[in-house]
């Protein structure tokens, strides 16, 4: 027994920090289903490269790991369901990563959905804000805000169903939540003129007002698990859920998406940008690793190929919504020329 543990200790001590031959990818759980498909296709292509290893760490966590330094112990690529922030670029620069290649791969819609057995929702972003924000304008008259006390959807807008507001959605750590708050609630906020005017004056208070979700139990955080939300919706026809379009597409037999601002969430409306609650998906590559870790350029080429993200690419089967051809062409060109990110 002693010999075994001695051997193990020695093994641990003598292992060299070996050079990697597998691409390491971290980042967003929203991009994960797409990146994994690309990785699998890439690995199966018999080009002599190993299948990349992809960890689902969330956009923020991924960028933090990505920017922590250079060398084989750090990831080569990070996925993000939002654009990289200025602060993250400077964190990268501090750790010696000056060249980052940005890739936009497509869109992901966020849907507000309920059970097929429940009422149909035809809702505006303003309704969503008034129903879900912690603070809303008091009545119509003054420019003051009160604590949100609406109980039913009808309290918010008389054309909506007379059922209790009960919304299952992602927790604050989720990128889906960030995007929903920004696009739906923020968008709804801006339809109220005085709040919109207020944004110019004091952006941080505006954010606090528009981006804060109520905490009185009407909005129920369900963990970062969209399948769980769908199960809740099936068992409770009066509940409403917030999740990614790809989950709606897989479960059309049990849930339906709400019409938001007059637009039905479909593949076409999200691709054309008519459906407003949608966001762009990205991945970022560390240029310094190209050349030392085999296959990065080939992986980039596979991901950016028309075969993957084009109008009929294979990622569409997994729920990715393609970008217009011109935008695609720009990012494909930047990817080929290894152009540094423009911020």
């Amino acid at each position, binding site marked *: 027994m002693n010999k*075994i543990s001695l051997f*193990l200790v020695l093994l641990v001590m003598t292992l060299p920090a070996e050079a990697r031959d597998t691409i390491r990818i971290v980042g967003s759980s929203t991009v994960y289903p797409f990146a994994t*498909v690309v*990785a699998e296709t890439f690995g199966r292509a018999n080009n002599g490269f190993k*299948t990349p290893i*992809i960890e689902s760490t969330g956009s923020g966590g991924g960028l933090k790991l990505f920017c922590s330094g250079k060398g084989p112990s750090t990831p080569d690529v990070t996925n993000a369901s939002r654009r990289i922030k200025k602060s993250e670029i400077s964190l990268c620069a501090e750790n010696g990563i000056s060249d980052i290649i940005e890739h936009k791969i497509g869109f992901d819609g966020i849907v507000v959905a309920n059970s097929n057995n429940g009422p149909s929702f035809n809702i505006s972003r303003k309704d969503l804000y008034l129903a879900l924000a912690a603070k809303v304008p008091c009545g119509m008259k003054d420019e003051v805000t009160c604590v949100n006390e609406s109980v039913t959807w009808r309290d918010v807008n008389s054309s909506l169903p007379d059922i209790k507001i009960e919304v299952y959605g992602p927790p604050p750590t989720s990128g889906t939540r960030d995007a929903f708050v920004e696009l739906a609630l923020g968008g709804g906020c801006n339809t109220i003129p005085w709040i919109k005017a207020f944004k110019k004056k004091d952006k941080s208070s505006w954010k606090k007002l528009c981006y804060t979700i109520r905490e009185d139990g009407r909005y129920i955080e369900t963990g970062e698990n*969209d399948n769980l939300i769908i199960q809740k919706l099936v068992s409770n026809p009066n509940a409403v859920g917030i999740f990614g379009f790809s989950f709606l597409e897989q479960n059309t*037999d049990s849930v339906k998406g709400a019409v938001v601002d007059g637009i039905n969430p479909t593949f076409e409306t999200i691709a054309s940008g008519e459906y407003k609650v949608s966001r762009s998906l990205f991945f970022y590559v560390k240029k310094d690793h190209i050349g030392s870790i085999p296959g990065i350029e080939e992986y980039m080429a596979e991901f950016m190929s028309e075969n993957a993200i084009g109008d009929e690419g294979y990622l569409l089967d997994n729920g990715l919504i393609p970008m217009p051809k011109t935008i695609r062409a720009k990012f494909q060109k930047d990817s080929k020329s290894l152009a540094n990110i423009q911020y």
Partner: protein
Amino acid sequence: MSNIIQRNKSEKRFQFYGLLAVGLAIFLLLILLFKIFSTGFSAFNQTYLGVKIQIEKGENLAELDARSTLRKNLRNMFPEAQSRSDKKNLYSLFSPGAYIEFEEMLKAYDGDVIDGYYYFLASDDLDMYFKGTVTRQGNSAGRIKPSQMKFVDEFVKMNLIELQFNRYLLGSADSRNPEMAGILGAIYGSLFAILIAFVTSFPLGVLTAIYLEKLTKQNAFSDLIETNINNLAAVPSIVFGLLGLAIFLNFFELPRSASLVGGLTLGLMTLPTIVIASRSAIKSVPPSIEEASIGLGSSKVQTIFNFTLPLAMPGILTGTIIGIARAIGETAPLLMIGMVAFIVDIPQGPLDASTALPVQIFLWQDSPERAFVERTSAAIIVLLIFLFLLNITAVYLRKKLEKKW
């Protein structure tokens, strides 16, 4: 003092409450097992579609392009599929795995003419429809559109859809195509990790217990160690993940996602449990046996290794296996050291990147594809079987090593 009738009554009541508690526990367990088995059972079978393959003499089978040949034979079966979109709909009923299977078949085929029906892997959408997970509404079912359904109906009419044993589930590693996804990579990862956790924590734990129990004097220092070990046993597992990250990845620079690191981390996590179990097992060895051994002239260490340890072994092993069984089910510490990842290659050794069984379950239950629901349950079944075998081993070892005195 209450009379005998009342006391008997209260005893009956107490027995009834006990029975109720046990009954409730069994009932809930049965619900859980029923749910898992009823959902997961269908994942052990997989939908296959029959295709009439005709390859004439003179072709070099091993050099044929599997993808285009299979598609050509498919078009021969459905000459009405002329337009590009119709062809695409027809092809989409098959998994990418169908082409791989066909390629393997061509390579292994003995002979130069193929003529007959062969079955190939269907897509996950069709799998879900055929198993009844998604119900048909008019001419569509879930993700199967009417334009695809007409081909599905043809296959049904020709009786060319069948369920076969799912050889991917236990024979391959993760995949983003549910019909080709398997848990073999995760099983290997779990096995490596558990083995490493055992060989590191068991000797360390037992030696620590012997030292604390037999070789050191009871003083403030040993009290301090004892308190700390008891505290460590209650520390949440994610903290051990952070420790693993700091020590094994950042300091020793071991490869990320390797089951070696996972095993060492889980070993650290199991260590306090083993120490505590071993100490109480050692404590329960009758002192008369040890005194006899000392009295006959053995040294302290001889006594420990010849008498105390063998007699304490059943208890030590039970504690160890319970600790290891807990470690098998952990995901949180593995998250920190990068084992929660998409890994397609089956690990060849403990230094290769790999996942573990609970991690695979965690990753699958979060996937949008419907077909992963039943596969998640199937993976849980395999994990439960794993745990069951471990516990059986624990009971067997205890029975076998138990000595009466």
